[in-house]
Structure formats: C-alpha cells, structure tokens
C-alpha cells in the first residue's frame, strides 16, 4: 500500500471541508483571529493532498 494515497485523500477532504467553511462562513472568527484562517489553511491542505496524490500516481506509473 502506498501511504501517499490514503493520506492524500485525507488532506484533500480536509481541505475541501475547510475551504467550504471559509467560503460559506467567511466571518467565522475566534476572539483574536484577523484572517479567514479556514480558507487559507484549507487551501494549503488541499494543495498538499493533491500533491501527495499526484506523487503517488507518478510513482505507480513508473513502477508499471
């Protein structure tokens, strides 16, 4: 099993949830937050998740 596949899907899913929160509830803030933290960190997780999936796909292509 290539660990990049399940962790890639996991972070993609987390990213989608957080970006969704960031878009639909852009004003959700805690006492000291100045940014739309859900949107930015969700975006980063989404990119990381997709990156892992792409890496896994490339590795699978090479070994075939």
């Amino acid at each position, binding site marked *: *099993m290539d660990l990049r596949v*399940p962790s890639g899907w996991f972070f993609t899913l987390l990213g989608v*949830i*957080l970006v969704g*929160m960031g878009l639909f509830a852009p004003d959700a803030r*805690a*006492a*000291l937050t100045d940014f739309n933290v*859900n949107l930015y960190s969700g975006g980063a997780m989404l990119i990381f998740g997709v990156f892992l999936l792409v890496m896994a796909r490339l590795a699978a292509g090479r070994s075939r």
Partner: protein
Amino acid sequence: MKLAPVDYVILATYFAMVLGIGWMLRKKVFTSGDFLTSGRAVPVWITSLAFIAANLGAQELIGMAASGAKYGIMTAHFYWIGAIPAMVFMGLFMMPFYYGSKARSVPEFLKMRFDEKTRGFNAFMFAVMTIFSSGISMYALGLLLHLVLGWNFTVSVLATAVIVLAYTYLGGLTSAIYNEVLQFFLIVAGFAPLAILSCAKAGGWHGIVSRLPSNMTHSWTHLGSTSQNPMGVEVFGVVAGLGFVLSFGYWCTNFLVVQRAMAADSMSAARRTPLIGAIPKMFLPFIVILPGIAAVALAQMAGAGGAHLYELPMKLGVGGVHVPDYDQVLTTLMGKFYPAGILGVGLTGLMASFMSGMAGNVTAFNTVFTYDIYQAYIRKGEPDRHYLKVGKMTTIVGVALSIGAAYLAGYYNNIMDILQFVFGVVNAPLFATFLLGMFWKRTTAHGAFTGLVTGTFGAVLLWCFTVAEGKGGVLGHLHTFPSTMAQNFWIAIVAFTTCFLVTILVTAFTPPRQESELEGLVYGLTKIRHEEGVKWYQRPVVLAVFVLVLAVILNIWFA
C-alpha cells in the same frame, strides 16, 4: 471552548482514516517479524517521519508550548542541541551495528555484544518504562480534554486507547508507523496556523523580542551563569547534560525510536532515517514552542476595554498562591485563535500526537516483551506462529496496562515524579554502555552489566538526596539545584560518568571475548559496506554535513 458539528466531522474522519489504514495492512501480517519489526520493508521517507513522530506525543506537544511560555526560546535547546547532533551520530556511527547485526531490538543487541543478564536488565527496565510513559501521557491528555472541553476523563482515555489498540493489533508495527506519518502531517497542519497567527498578532518575531525580557528570546546569550536565565542552567549543563548525555542516550539507545529506523528496507535507508528525520525535527520548534513564547507577549498587549489580549491560565499552587498553569497555554491559545473548522483540525492534531506517542510505546513494548522476555526466559523454541500470537496478545495487555498506569498517575502524583525522573535518566548510563561496547572491543559483559546497574541506581540515589523546586530529596538533603531542569542535567551527567568509569574498571579485571565473536558488533572489527549505486545526495555523510550546517545556522540566528 466549544466544538461545532464540523469539528466533530473532522475528528471522526481522522478516526475512520487510522482504522482504515490498520484494516488495509492486516493482510500483510503473516509472521512475528511482519508484526513486530515490519519485516524490514518500510520506505525511507516513512521511517524518517515516524522516527520523529513517535517522540512527538501529546505530552511533548503540550509540554513544549508550556516550556516556551515558561523559559522562552531556550526550550529550542531540546531540539537544536538536544536532538540533532545525537540523530546525526546515530545515523553515521551506530546504525551500521544495529541494522547490520540483525538484532530485532536494542536489548537483543546487548545480548549479542555482551550477555544475557545485560539484556535482561535493559529489557525489563525498558518494558516498565514504556508502560508508564504511555500511561502518564494518557493521563495528561485525558486531564486536558476534561479541563478544556469538559469531556469525560474515562471516556476520552478509553476511546483513544481502543482506537490505538485496534490499528496496532491489526497491522502491527507497519500500521503504527504508517499512522505516525499521517499523525505527523496532521500535527503540522493543526498547529502551524496557530504559530503563524499568534506570532503575527504579537507583531512578528521582532514584536515578541521587543516585549519580552532578553533572556526569553535568546537561547545562548544568557547561559553564562545559572541565575541569568529562567531555566537555571549554564553552558556546561546544557552542552554536557542535555546535548551529550541525555540526548545521545535518548536518540541512540531508546528502542522506541531506534525501532523505526530498524524497520527501513536497507542498510542505507536505515542510516538515512535519523538524518532525514533531523531536517523536519529542526523546524518543529517554530510550530510547537513559538506559540508559547508568543502567548507571553500577547499577555502584555492591551486589547479592547483595557484588558490584555490574552491572559495566562492560572491554577492554585502550593500554599494557596495562584501560579500560571503553563500546560494549558496551548489549548487556551487555540480557543483564542481558532474558529470552528480549523479548531477541529487542531484538536485532531492533539489527539493524533497522543496516539502516535502511545502507539510508539505499545509497539516497542510488545517487541521487547515478545523477543527479549517471553522468547528469552519464558518459552524458548516455539514455532513462529506462537510468537506472532504472543505479540498480538502483548499488544492488548500493553494497552490495558497503560490505562492502569494512567489512573495510577492520577492518584499518586509523587510516584509519577520519581518515575518521570527515572525515565529521564535511564538512558543516560545506557549510552555509556553502548559507546564503550561499540567502539572499544575490550569491553566485557561483566563490565557493561556492573556499569549499567551502578549508573542507574547511582542516579536514583542522587535524586533521593538532592532537591530542586521541592522535588526529590526523599531520603535526605545534600544539595539544592536552582531548577528541576538543572537537577536532571547534572544527575544524567553523574549517571553517565559512573557507568563509564565502572565499566572500564570492571573490564580491566575480567577476561575479554574472542575478537572473531565480535564481528559486526564493534567498530574496527566490522567492514562497513561502501554505498555503491547510491546517489551522492543520499550518502549519509553528505546528509549529515547538510543537517549540521543548518543546525549551526539556527543556533546562531537565535543565539
């Protein structure tokens, strides 16, 4: 702190994920080797991240933010001095013997190099230590979840323990290692935003420096004498105690971390494991310590209505005085900065760190128990099927014992002080044994055993006679240390030196072993294969130089 439905969804997704990984890996477990040592077939990037994740338990995460708030950037010494050099040494000099000897555990290596009694002593100490470590960490997390979220202590402890048990039982060490990597990513995802947000709010690093006393934001400048810095230590204590004895003892001889490197798929990968792991390890302080330092700066900044932006959490201390409760810094900061959504990720990261710490202890415990206690002393010569079954049963027993230890930690805080101290120094004398054993072929088994026993008990005795911050001094009061940190550093130095000298002394009076028996176990008698066909940037020496240069830069930057 209140959680929204989305936070629970994230937490549940993560739990489903770790169980899913365990479920998928269950079909790969046929032998005791598959279950307990991963059949030595794990890719190097995975072993490297697991190598540092197994050490990144909940106590570590909570404790580093707490120390950041209490001691400032000096806490980073636990990484830049207290881990990196030792990890480099391990990859360059010790891994060839661990991996090359085909030993399945650290105690088994001791048996090959020395004798049965040295192995027995170490295996027993280690087994007890892992159970109590995981119990103490479980207690810390349960207490925190109860304080912050109002969750029931028993339910949160049992639920997380059952999940750890499920995935380690299904997939063994491989499952634990794979999940540790996922947990490492999640810890970074959950806490890096906190570091960025809290630091930005406090005006960046410059804003923090301008608000805090100089000894909170400089790691080396104020180490001249014990009275100048909040940790109560001086250069010698840090370099010799933490940087040499404690850290080499932990990173080079603690089976919990060594086991991860030994699961790598080749000698070259095993040697690269601690070296590659050192790179992310170096930057962890920015995620785990920085929020604690920023919290102290925020506590001095005025917000709306004349109140401070943030107040350090308080608790009732000795004699009815309120003292800061540093252990709650991390979670209260999360409450101040995280809205629903990312809060779920942060909380999941906290749970993940707890699970990776516990799974690390449990998988190390079942290997040492099965191979070094059960197979060595209880039932020898059974077919492998039998040991696989014992390994699986031991996993269940290990988790159950840890839960028991967690409750014990709640009832007897004093016993826990002693135990935590013992774990702190138990590896210090062991490192002297390994240093002599691996690099001096003359070292005898009787010498190693006597040195190890006197070093260990010498340390405990010294703790019983010295006092720091009201701890220790159970049997008498000969000396007072300025802080428990200084006490730990100095006792480790004494334990190491005692073991080192006694081992040499006894060795001088006992007969050495045949050199032919020591091949593959001792430096100078072992051919270390040159890495052919490995690219230049994959060579251990190249990696080691790169890692050390980075570590020096960081040390100078924050001196």
